[in-house]
């Protein structure tokens, strides 16, 4: 039952260099009786991109959704162990989930803009959390967020148009703008490019690399090339266990575990 995660070669350089943002310890996640994550421990560094890879059903999305407590919306889901965000246990009773999710943003697999205008989509979280002093301030935040999501030039003349009218890649960048508008510290991305074409994917990846200067980014991906391109830290999941964690270069060039090697060389998954 108890499984020791392998680190390559020892403590990954990115974890040693950057401050820890999220520290998970002995995390178990259950859906009803079924165990989806077993005894998971990982440190996720700030101002870096961490990628979770692994075959379908390995628990990587489940763990991602545990970090901002999105699993709370699934009644049968239960989480044990400790996930610390800046040292604070997020499953502590005293934690305000609303505040937590304002600080840990999320981007989903399928772009899910609200049925509102482009402006209102980005303004959504800002309004909910009362982050803008007045109308001018709100407009400034919306503009900046769209600029940071590198969407501004494409939509600046049609902010009042429906967000759902944009192309898939633009919608996903709109969702990223919406997430960064509330000035979070962490951005979780659940396969953000799996519904996009290669060009839109390239733009999002470029954006991810820009954003890591200011945010702690965690990305779940099915594409090993994507993990290799954008991430600093790579974690390989298999059947609910975290098999191996290491600097991305090291994991892809010199995996310590046979299963990791089999997966990244395409032997299964």
């Amino acid at each position: 039952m108890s499984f020791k995660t392998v680190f390559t070669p020892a403590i990954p350089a990115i974890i040693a260099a950057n401050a820890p943002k999220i520290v998970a310890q002995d995390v178990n996640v259950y859906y009803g009786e079924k165990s989806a994550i077993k005894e998971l421990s990982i440190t996720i560094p700030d101002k870096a991109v961490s990628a979770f890879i692994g075959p379908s059903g390995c628990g990587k999305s489940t763990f991602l959704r545990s970090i901002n407590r999105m699993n709370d919306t699934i009644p049968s889901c239960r989480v044990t162990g400790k996930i610390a965000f800046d040292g604070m246990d997020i499953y502590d009773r005293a934690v305000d989930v609303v505040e937590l999710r304002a600080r840990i943003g999320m981007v989903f697999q399928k772009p899910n803009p609200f049925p509102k205008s482009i402006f209102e989509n980005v303004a959504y979280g800002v309004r909910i959390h009362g982050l803008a002093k007045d109308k001018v301030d709100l407009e400034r935040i919306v503009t900046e967020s769209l600029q940071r999501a590198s969407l501004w030039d494409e939509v600046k003349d049609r902010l009042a148009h429906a967000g759902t009218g944009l192309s898939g890649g633009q919608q996903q960048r709109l969702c990223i703008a919406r997430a960064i508008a509330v000035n979070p510290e962490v951005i979780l991305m659940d396969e953000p490019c799996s519904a996009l074409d290669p060009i839109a994917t390239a733009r999002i990846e470029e954006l991810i690399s820009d954003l890591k200067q200011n945010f702690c980014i965690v990305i779940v991906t099915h594409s090993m090339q994507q993990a290799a391109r954008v991430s600093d830290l790579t974690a390989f999941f298999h059947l609910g266990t975290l098999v191996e964690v290491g600097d991305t270069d090291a994991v892809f060039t010199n995996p310590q575990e046979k299963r990791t090697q089999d997966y990244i060389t395409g032997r299964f998954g």
Partner: protein
Amino acid sequence: MTTTSLNLTKKYRLRHYTEPVVFSLMLGASFFAVLTTLGIVLSVASESYRFFSAVPLQSFLFGTEWAPSSPIPSFGFVPLIVGTLLITIIALAVAAPIGILSAVYMAEYATPRARAFAKPLLELLAGIPTVVLGFFAALTVAPFIRAMGAQVGLTIASESALAAGLVMGMMIVPLISSLSDDVINAVPQAMRDGSYAMGATQSETIRKVVLPAAFPGIVSAFILAISRAIGETMIVVMAAGLAPNLSINPLAAVTTVTVQINAMLVGDQEFDSAKTLSAFALGLTLFVLTLILNVIALRVVRQYKEHYA
């Protein structure tokens, strides 16, 4: 052993005949439905034409007195439509909040068990025959309102628009809640997830994301409910009365278009008197009214979809 060659000729295959038969059956069924509607509209329109050759259109549409049985009959439509609208508005004032809130409860808050229990119960209300609702309004609700009015020193007619409107509201609650529940359920979970992930609470998510996304469907639910309310007969026959008062006082007795159609045709009537023919004219106006409502609903929904979908 001989091999049978594939028979590619058309003639011995039954399937070449079944397809056209199925096709013509379906075409016939659709045609029949369309034809019936057309027939009803044409018949009502032609009888109305006969009515309007006896009574000028203007005096019908803008007349404020409805007295078809008096020695000098007058056929003013205004008191009837005002009565109809008054009762419909009262019904909506009851049904809109109750219907929407119960739909939101069932779709968003209720546990699956509570929902499995509450939804059929609410739909049971829709199954109550309107004649039962009618005497409930006339014999239970109206006297209750009258007694309540007496307590605070108000004189309320024993047949009041309020009693009829309240009960009619209860009649359309299941319609609004059931349809709204369906459209709220149809809002993709991804929308809710997106909102929760922004740190929105459940009620913020419902108010700002789910209900706006479900808005076109909710509008059509309302229009359907209004159409039902305008066309409803039994409740108003029993509870609203026959007095064609031109009044917007909910505590007074009023009459409606449907009640008067009913009254014009009940009993022994000559079928060519203006009095009897007025039923067709009233029916036609009712038909036009619901048609206009449906067109408005379609436009609202389409405009909204252009904007947001």
